[in-house]
């Protein structure tokens, strides 16, 4: 539909519409043409594929080096003054998209850690124990509880680790299919990663598409719940046909040992954040309320002490260390390496430090691509050949987001990289911010937990490899190979399918003229 071959209704003679803002010249020129401005992000993508997919090293720090490497290589291809290139890096880094995501991540990280340290998973284990589900229904029940847990803490990787540690061995003992149990955990992680307002990918999808996080969560519920309902039915049916393995172990009392109903109070903490975000409160305000309530529950109910929330480890010769040594938040350490600050609050925040640096660098590289003209070239080609009408535009958005998330292990990084492309394609057809964010995050969450090189699968598998050392009856042969789980991550496959159908049929489609997403400026 690009170009001006279609006339307006009254046959306007000046029918030569062209794209562009009148500022057509790229501000940075490259040897080799404008396509070379994609070199930094191209180097990063190749680096990310080699490191994470081919060598299976899921390390955000390594990706930071890859992005730095790409930015340095790109500079050597700049014509004329390199200062414009360097300035564009800073221009990109100071875009609101990056800083908004970082602020929200750090708040969300603290909240998630408080819930984890406050025994939330123990509460869910108690629920599973109370329900007394058998082998056939265990995968379906695991899916529901993992979905609930991830919706509370936001991080699907954390949920995969916590649930593999507790629910996977329990499933083995009950005689449930290990492949289905692991797949159900991953499906639950996808559900929460996609829907939780404190999820890193939810936050990125909202801020890159200029939308408020609460509105994004409410508007994506319809896609998520359709996929989840089918997923639940799928695990119930598959659970009847796929059996478990003989463990030779005695009574399945693993659940009872790890269960503690009091951790369920964090359903309230979780409800406060979700309710406040959807009611339109600023996301920092919403999560702050969740943090305050979670700390209060942890302290009042004895789920975690003040020292577990924050502890200062000071050297003995520090001026005020000895006089205040009785404070519960202060401990004196002899080992110089042990000096520091620790606890839920610190761990939660620091979990996002590396990702924060990475997102700054990726946004900088995207800005180089925009200023250098490669982004416009890709966009023009897409509009000419792929996104020729609104249905094809949405299918293009689904396919491009799915592809980049399928090949880059750390799905948040992939989502940041593809965000501008999704935004521009969607804005051209006046798709509103919620619809764009939902298409983007649906694929991001789904494809981040399916393939053997996906971050969520790697996190869960790593936890699983530690299980034989923990339980005498559990040997290496009982573990699930990541490749075996691929077809059974129902929530992932179904979520992608829901979006393909939604693009074709127009289900859930909203235009800017139907409803404008509330400004991300509120974030």
């Amino acid at each position: 539909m690009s170009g001006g071959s279609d006339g307006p209704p009254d046959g306007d003679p000046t029918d030569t519409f062209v794209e562009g803002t009148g500022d057509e010249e790229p501000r940075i020129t490259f040897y080799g043409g404008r396509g070379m401005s994609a070199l930094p992000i191209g180097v990063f993508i190749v680096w990310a594929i080699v490191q994470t997919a081919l060598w299976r090293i899921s390390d955000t720090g390594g990706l930071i080096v890859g992005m730095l490497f790409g930015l340095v290589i790109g500079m050597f291809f700049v014509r004329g003054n390199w200062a414009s290139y360097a300035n564009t890096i800073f221009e990109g880094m100071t875009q609101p998209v990056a800083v908004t995501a970082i602020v929200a991540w750090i708040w969300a990280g603290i909240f998630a850690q408080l819930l984890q340290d406050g025994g939330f998973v123990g509460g869910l284990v108690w629920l599973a124990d109370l329900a007394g589900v058998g082998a056939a229904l265990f995968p379906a029940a695991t899916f529901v509880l993992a979905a609930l847990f991830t919706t509370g803490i936001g991080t699907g990787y954390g949920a995969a680790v916590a649930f593999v540690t507790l629910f996977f061995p329990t499933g083995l003992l009950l005689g449930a299919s290990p492949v289905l149990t692991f797949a159900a955990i991953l499906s639950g992680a996808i559900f929460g990663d996609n829907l939780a307002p404190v999820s890193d990918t939810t936050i990125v999808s909202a801020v890159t598409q200029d939308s408020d996080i609460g509105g994004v969560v409410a508007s994506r519920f319809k896609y998520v719940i359709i996929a989840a309902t089918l997923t639940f039915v799928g695990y119930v049916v598959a659970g009847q046909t796929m059996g478990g393995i003989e463990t030779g172990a005695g009574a399945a009392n693993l659940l009872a040992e790890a269960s503690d109903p009091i951790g369920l109070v964090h359903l309230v903490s979780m409800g406060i954040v979700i309710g406040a975000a959807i009611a339109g409160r600023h996301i920092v305000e919403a999560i702050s309320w969740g943090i305050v309530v979670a700390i209060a529950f942890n302290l009042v109910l004895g789920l975690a002490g003040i020292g577990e929330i924050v502890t200062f480890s000071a050297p003995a010769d520090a001026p005020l260390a000895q006089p205040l040594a009785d404070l519960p938040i202060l401990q004196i350490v002899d080992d110089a390496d042990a000096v520091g600050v620790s606890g839920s609050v610190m761990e939660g925040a620091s979990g996002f430090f590396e990702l924060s640096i990475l997102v700054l660098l990726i946004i900088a590289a995207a800005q180089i691509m925009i200023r250098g003209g490669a982004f416009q070239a890709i966009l023009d080609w897409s509009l000419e050949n792929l996104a020729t009408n609104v249905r094809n535009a949405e299918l293009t958005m689904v396919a491009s987001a799915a592809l980049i998330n399928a090949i880059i292990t750390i799905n948040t990084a992939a989502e940041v990289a593809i965000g501008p492309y999704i935004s521009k394609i969607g804005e051209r057809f006046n798709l509103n911010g919620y619809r764009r964010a939902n298409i983007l995050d649906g694929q991001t969450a789904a494809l981040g937990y399916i393939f053997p090189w996906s971050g969520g699968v790697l996190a869960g598998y790593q936890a699983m490899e530690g299980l034989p050392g923990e339980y005498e009856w559990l040997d290496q042969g009982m573990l699930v190979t990541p490749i075996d789980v691929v077809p059974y991550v129902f929530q992932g496959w179904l979520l992608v399918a829901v979006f393909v159908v939604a693009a074709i049929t127009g289900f859930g489609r909203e235009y800017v003229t139907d409803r404008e997403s509330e400004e991300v400026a509120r974030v």
Partner: protein
Amino acid sequence: MSLFSKYLKGWRFRSSEPTFEPGDEISVFVAETNGTDGRAYVGDTRLTVEGAGPETVEKRVRVRVTEFDDSSATGRGELLEVVGESSYTG
């Protein structure tokens, strides 16, 4: 909009060619321009925005619809004001 109604919004199949009535005031992103008038696509509906020059491309503008043909899903409108930016400005 209440908390609950936000969850229920959008449970429908939306046309790829939305229609408008003369007099409607809408907000749209301008996709392209011929120098004096702009073109906005709302799905596959095409709107010519009078007075939307190069400075409005990839900007969100407020438009008053002046005429609309349902059968061809095309229409015209006049530019009222620029009200917003693209998510990414390049």
